[in-house]
């Protein structure tokens, strides 16, 4: 039986097999630690990109847990189900663009902004020609318009069951079940094609028409 004495002041003078084994084990463990840390870091970064919400702290937690957390967040978004209907927000650019086109072709804003009380009907009529002609040109150039119903106004038409209530509006004595029969009061208009100009980044759509200075 061997007995081992412990003396911490001793320094080994020979680099024997034990030492080699010891050093190898240390190196291996260090390597495993580095690989583990790296893989954690990478997966963390990937997770961050997707939701862009979580301020996921770089805690040395297992990767799986982080994924679980994201799922939870998504569920939270879905959770308040009876949220009010999302209303479409009209982009102001297209509206401004249309105003610009009507002003350019038809002097629309000029006409609307003018106080017409002071003028005679004949004078207004002359200006109305400019506006009518220009509006006609602007609308025809940028929109394709078609009637919703092709029948003659004033004629009797029958709407079958399941007709599209968005394209045909019922008025008056609405009782009973479809098919409904009634008089076509207005044939309706629908836009079937739209060709609005594209805008460059430097374009300020809010300027409906620029001020003009002649040199």
């Amino acid at each position, binding site marked *: 039986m061997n007995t081992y004495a412990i003396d911490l002041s001793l320094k080994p003078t020979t680099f024997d097999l034990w030492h080699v084994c010891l050093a190898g084990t240390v190196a291996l463990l260090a390597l495993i630690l580095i690989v583990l840390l790296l893989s954690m870091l990478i997966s963390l970064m990937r997770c961050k990109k997707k939701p862009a919400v979580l301020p996921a702290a770089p805690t040395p937690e297992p990767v799986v847990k982080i994924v679980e957390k994201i799922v939870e967040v998504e569920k939270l978004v879905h959770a308040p189900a009876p949220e009010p209907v999302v209303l479409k927000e009209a982009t102001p650019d297209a509206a401004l*663009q249309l105003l*610009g086109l009507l002003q*350019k072709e038809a*002097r629309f804003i*000029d*006409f609307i*902004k*003018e106080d*017409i009380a002071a*003028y005679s009907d004949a*004078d*207004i009529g*002359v*200006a109305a*020609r*400019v*506006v009518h*002609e220009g509006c006609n040109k602007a609308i025809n150039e940028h929109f394709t318009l078609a009637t919703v119903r092709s029948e003659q106004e004033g004629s009797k038409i029958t709407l079958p069951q399941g007709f599209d209530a968005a394209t045909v509006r019922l008025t008056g004595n609405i009782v009973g079940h479809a098919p409904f029969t009634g008089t076509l009061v207005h044939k309706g208009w629908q836009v079937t094609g739209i*060709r609005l*100009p*594209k*805008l*460059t*980044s*430097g*374009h*300020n759509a809010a300027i409906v028409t620029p001020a*003009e200075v002649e040199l």
Partner: protein
Amino acid sequence: MKELFGSQPAKEDGVVAELENQPDEVVVEPTQQGIRFSVGIDLGTTHCVLSYAELEHIDDEGFSPQVMAIPQLTSPGSIEDKPQLPSFLYQAHPAELAEDSTALPWIAKPDYLVGEIARNLGSKTPIRLVASAKSWLCHTGVDCKAPILPAEAPDEVDRVSPFQATTAYLQHLRDAWQSQFPDAPLDQQDVVITVPASFDPAARELTAEAARAVGLTQAILLEEPQAALYSWIEKSHGDWRNHAEVGDIILVIDVGGGTTDLSLIAVTQQEGNLELTRVAVGDHILLGGDNMDLALAYTVKAKLEKDGKRLEPWQIQALTHSCRDAKEKIFINTEVDNIPLVVASRGSSLIGGTLRSELTREEVNRVLIEGFLPKVVVSDKPVSRPRTGLRTAGLPYAQDAGITRHLAAFLTKQQGATDELSDIHLPEHASFLHPTAVLFNGGVLKADALADRLMEVLNSWLSAEQAPEARLLEGADLDLAVARGAAYYGYVRKGKGVRIKGGTAASYYVGIESAMPAVPGMSPEIQALCIAPFGMEEGTQQELPDDEFGLVIGEPVRFRFFASNTRREDKVGTRLDYWTDEELDELEEIEITLPEEGRRPGEVVPVHLCAAVTEVGTLELQAVSQKDNGRWKIEFDVRAGE
């Protein structure tokens, strides 16, 4: 496309053989490397149109060319797709437009503003607007590569040359194509560019050079009236053979925005097949729809001034626009007898400062029909006053607005155009060439009143000589025919369909001094030596070996250069001692400079001249050395060099 030939089985042999060869050819040809489209570009004086058709699908579904929507700026910051690109260029002041408001889908800051925006900005600032660059290309007396446009701009405005402007339009079209078909670069498609039939060799060369400058080295040229006829043939889907017969002479009348172009195409027979030959082209007449709108505007202006109202230039411009619209309404709507015209004030008050007048049917008839299409007899000639003073600043606009007079002069001048064709028989007593069919082109002739009057005048000339009335060829698309026809021509060049034979539209001559003793006070007599005959086909060349010229190395040598669109019989080497002013038109001088290339400066090299018509469709003149066969190109565009 076989139905093109279906109606006449007896005439098919030659063509069928060609059609059968076609599949092999497709395999051999590098079609697979990317040539997929036949593209036709109508490079007009006021508008450019690009039409294209997919070559691979032509056989299956017939030919149905599309017109490309061209994205362009319409006002600063706003881009729209339009079927036409107005041929205008605007040189904006650096402070005029906001930053980033001139971007196009393919470039953040284009070098030049072209298209709708140029026309719009230029209508208020004409000193910065370049218009009608195409007419300048054919204007003798200016250097087309010198920055001369806008002609009336103050000194500080940057000018461009007519050549640069043409290049800018082509570049816009090429870039627009590239952004729509990124996988099919335009320089790998079959591209046909149309030019007026009346373009001289220098103007054709400049157009081809502009195409090369934007990388379209493969583009070829086609005369606009021919393109219009191709379009008519293509639209008839083979039925044209029932509307044209042997012995027909088709008169193509093309009245565009700025120019009027006339051509005659004869229908003959070759081994049972119908053949089309372009036999004559007219002069370059700067007269078109824009003149008509202006004439109406000035009529209304006179009316307003009678009431004591004075018009400012911008009001006349606005009036011209309203007159154009009013004229169209009167022509389309036969019940309407007058159209109110309104010129709104420029300020924001619309009702107060508005100017009102009207245009009546009577005025339109008087000004347009009687003014531009007067009833004349065929012996009438266009009035031409001698030009006084220097006219270098402007274009040589036609002095006589009577289109019918120009037409009469053309038909009279070309009376002998079909003498060499055995299938065409003109009566002995004919005093002009009798067309049997008429094809219209150009937006102006969409108005039935104008088209009818033109036919009426032409038929009155014919019936005065007991000739049958000419018939109108129906079914032409007056606005887009040229671009469509150009795209179809790319397909015809593949050996399918019927091809119009043409060649050069004139014979060409150089002026040489005849050897005679000097007489004081008299310049030596000039002889005209024919170097290229009438009707030289593309890809052919003719040499003139017997006449030698001594050229001095290193020194430019100039020749006077003439063209004739009536002398069809002259062969290469024919010398003319005498000619009338009507027979020969003098073009700009041509110039040769022999480079030193190992020779001593001052040495005299004997050369002869050689003329070739390239595949592109341009005329090329060369000097060929007798000793070592060295060749030097002779330059056309040395206009106003001194």
